[in-house]
């Protein structure tokens, strides 16, 4: 009833091409933005910011990075965490080497370095596909981890490889408080989502999907396969690199290689499988799921299973539930939560009618 298209016809191609075509969608977006920027920073507590909202935002961004590469351009990768690590360490090193470099600029620079590394590890994609490409990105994962722990230069001679992130100063303002870190993260993540949403609905985005769906036909209509794939690696790695910087700077407060191990790569992959391959919104849904599930489980087990389940078993239970869900999704809803959401929306459009 309230969510209806009635009378909203696109009279220009530009309108029809908008990401959010209906006024209800746009109104909902503005309401969400007002909530995220105007209300949450004042009513949230430190636990919300540090344990839920910041990791949710950063993981959404990491999901977006991988989704552009895998969901849109069809190139499988298990190297997400490696590109995140490159971004984090590059931002840190650049801050250290160039004192006075603005924080946001160092995030961008970290992304650019990650993009360059991404292109190098993307080169094999011109020759190999699918499973073999997955193995080659796995090599990237192990190589980067090894490099960052092996050479102390990257962590400024710190034995443990763990370094404290610099203070979060932007234009003289300190964003070091939990609410500040949340606002800073939000202000970096959202614009990147807007850019990515524009990109996937433009010529480059269509070329990515064409290469994903059938590369011979893509070549025949003149799409430059090499350039298209390498751009996917570059842009995906850029976003992952920025996500890595945020993970280190605004979430953990430390820069360390072990936060970016293979299990992080898998986590990002699960986000896009659960959220939806080839969906922008899906990255938020998948990340929310991944962040909230352990919290919900621990609350549930605290109240329902207290005494039944030994404390140490909770983590195993989480893993089992996760594994089962991933398999269920792959079988039942390969398009992820984003598709479920669309189905629900399609019904809401017709409500209270049934057809």
């Amino acid at each position, binding site marked *: 009833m309230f969510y209806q298209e009635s009378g909203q016809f696109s009279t220009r191609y*530009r309108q029809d091409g908008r990401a959010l075509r209906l006024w209800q969608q746009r109104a909902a977006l503005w309401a969400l933005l007002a909530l995220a920027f105007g209300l949450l920073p004042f009513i949230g507590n430190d636990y919300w910011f540090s344990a839920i909202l910041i990791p949710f935002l950063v993981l959404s961004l990491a999901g977006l990075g991988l989704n552009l590469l895998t969901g849109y351009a069809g190139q499988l990768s298990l190297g997400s965490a490696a590109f995140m690590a490159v971004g984090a360490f590059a931002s840190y090193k650049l801050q250290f080497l160039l004192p006075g470099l603005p924080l946001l600029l160092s995030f961008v620079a970290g992304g650019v370095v990650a993009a360059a590394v991404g292109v190098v590890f993307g080169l094999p994609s011109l020759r190999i596909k699918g499973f073999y490409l997955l193995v080659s990105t796995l090599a990237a994962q192990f190589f980067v981890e090894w490099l960052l722990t092996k050479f102390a230069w990257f962590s400024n001679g710190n034995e443990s490889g763990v370094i404290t992130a610099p203070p979060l100063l932007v234009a003289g303002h300190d964003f070091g408080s939990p609410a500040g870190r949340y606002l800073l993260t939000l202000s970096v993540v959202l614009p990147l989502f807007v850019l990515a949403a524009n990109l996937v609905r433009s010529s480059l985005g269509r070329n990515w999907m064409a290469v994903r769906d059938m590369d011979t036909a893509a070549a025949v209509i003149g799409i430059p396969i090499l350039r298209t794939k390498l751009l996917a690696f570059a842009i995906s790695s850029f976003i992952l690199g920025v996500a890595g910087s945020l993970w280190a700077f605004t979430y953990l407060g430390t820069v360390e290689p072990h936060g970016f191990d293979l299990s992080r790569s898998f986590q990002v992959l699960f986000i896009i499988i659960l959220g939806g391959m080839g969906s922008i919104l899906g990255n938020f849904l998948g990340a929310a799921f991944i962040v909230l599930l352990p919290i919900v489980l621990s609350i549930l087990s605290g109240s329902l299973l207290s005494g039944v389940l030994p404390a140490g078993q909770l983590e195993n239970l989480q893993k089992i539930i996760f594994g089962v869900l991933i398999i269920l999704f792959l079988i039942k809803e390969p398009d992820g939560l984003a598709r479920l959401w669309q189905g629900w929306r399609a019904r809401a459009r017709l409500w209270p009618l049934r057809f």
Partner: protein
Amino acid sequence: MSETVAPLLSLSHISLSFKGVKAVTDIGFDVAEGEICALIGPNGAGKSSLLNVINGVYQPQQGEIRFAGRARRAMQPHEAAVAGIARTFQNIALFKGMSVLDNILTGRNLASRSSWLEQAFRVGRAVADEEAQRAVAEEVIAFLRLQAWRHTPVGQLPYGLQKRVELGRALAARPRLLLLDEPMAGMNREEKREMSQFIREVNQVFGTTIVLIEHDIGVVMELSDHVVVLDYGRKIGDGEPAAVRALPEVIAAYLGQQRH
């Protein structure tokens, strides 16, 4: 036909083999600008292979391809697209995860002038560019009467419509030469009639030169200005439809088979 105007496409001495298996042997023929040329022949005669040679999917071991005044030893797919050659495939090769509109828009990729940065920020040439490509895509959609399925994922469309969308993707590029590999295969009579009509209109309205492969002799005789007959990778007939039909080799090798 006067031969003062150079043909748009000219193949000479093309030979192609796969690990010793000859698919095409020493084939040459000309396609004049603006004509509809039909390639016919029994299964495995080498028709599809020849189309693949023309737009660079296969590189022949011997021969020369002359297109629009430029001679080449072999084509590359990208080079062919830039030169103005578009095609459809025998087995539909659409982008399954994309909508009808997006599939047709991919046909415009070479016409896109904006950089990916402009597209990401929706600044500079990106906005006007996207609208210009959309306008052309809409013309194609209207021409092929695909309006009702604009936003439908192509994987959900019936076979006949998918064939039409694939034609649309090729037309969106505004090609000079259009290669159609069995555009009517698997269609019922009504769909065939419609598709023939589209092909004829493309040829007459846009002046597009067309090379098509088709098994239905009735359709071929009605549609084409020029017929080339292949059998076991060799050319056994080349000329106007009526004349080709009368050739004894053709009757024996191909048309004869249709009768029993």
